């Protein structure tokens, strides 16, 4: 916004005035450091909210899915950490890939990943999702999910114990905390 045009503001049409004053708040906040302050205050709040309500997708592929189910049982209890499994990808934050991915499944999994709204994370659970696992010489399995989806946390094991899965989610919490951006998404 150009302040030299200010005396002529009264003669502008509505359209011109809107275009001229659009960035006023933004520029003021930028100049005074307000944006940074808001970011600094809100980033921990958003990260606290997001990491304690990490909704994974109700998607079980193979053996690791049984350990995922055991983790949501009463002995290991993932729900106390805020992990409520949701059925629709639109309502979830985390895509937990537990099992080997075949050529038939790969486009559907990519579509699920794209249907999840930002911010979202991907956790690869088990050897098959990390790098193909025992099926390293199969003609139909993808050797690692990170060949077509960006992965945030890898949980090794075949299958990983439920405690290991919860530990993996704790690491995801740390990652969310560290990388969270504030309201204005600038850092």
């Amino acid at each position, binding site marked *: 916004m150009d302040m030299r045009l200010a005396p002529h503001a009264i003669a502008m049409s509505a359209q011109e005035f809107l275009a001229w004053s659009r960035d006023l708040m933004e520029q003021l906040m930028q100049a005074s450091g307000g944006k940074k302050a808001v970011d600094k205050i809100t980033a921990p709040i958003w990260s606290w909210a997001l990491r304690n309500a990490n909704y994974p997708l109700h998607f079980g592929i193979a053996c690791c899915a049984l350990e995922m189910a055991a983790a949501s049982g009463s002995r290991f209890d993932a729900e106390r950490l805020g992990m409520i499994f949701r059925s629709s990808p639109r309502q979830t934050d985390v895509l937990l890939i537990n099992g080997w991915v075949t050529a038939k499944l790969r486009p559907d999994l990519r579509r699920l990943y794209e249907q999840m709204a930002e911010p979202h994370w991907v956790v690869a659970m088990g050897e098959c999702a990390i790098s193909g696992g025992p099926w390293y010489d199969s*003609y*139909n399995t993808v050797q690692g999910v990170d060949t077509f989806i960006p992965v945030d946390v890898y949980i090794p094991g075949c299958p990983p114990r439920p405690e290991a899965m919860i530990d993996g989610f704790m690491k995801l919490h740390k990652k969310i905390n560290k990388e969270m951006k504030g309201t204005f998404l600038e850092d």
Partner: protein
Amino acid sequence: MAQREGLGPGGKTGEVIAQALIEQFPEYIKIKKATHNRVYAMVDKTAWLKVATYMKDKFEFDHVTAVSGVDWLEEKKMWVVSHITSYSNQVTAEIIVELPRDKPEIDSVSNLWGGANWHERETYDMFGIIFLGHPRMERILTPEGTDYFPYRKDFVGGRRV
């Protein structure tokens, strides 16, 4: 314990069944071994459907345990190995049919036993053996657009996707 109708020793042991099969189809069938609850036989390709119908009608073979294929690359032949069980006689028969490798076609038994339906589809998918008369001879396990037969011996396994 309740009565077992239609189940339990029906009196026809494996040896009896093997004997009856040899008498009925002398030039098409070769019995490798027969015990009281097992029959191991090799059947000619042209007589497979007739033998299967005979086994179902006369000896109550009503359950197909498996139909699978074996690829013998060097001998240039393929086998279709069927394991068929009779609940009432408690006998399981292993029947091997030899096919030439360059033209692997065999009659389908899916109309006799619905349980063979998906087994035959899978054998086609993995080996390329065509079952004539099958209601739906399509691939079942490999994704659409696969143009190879994975379990054949000349298909080298390994990372492909």
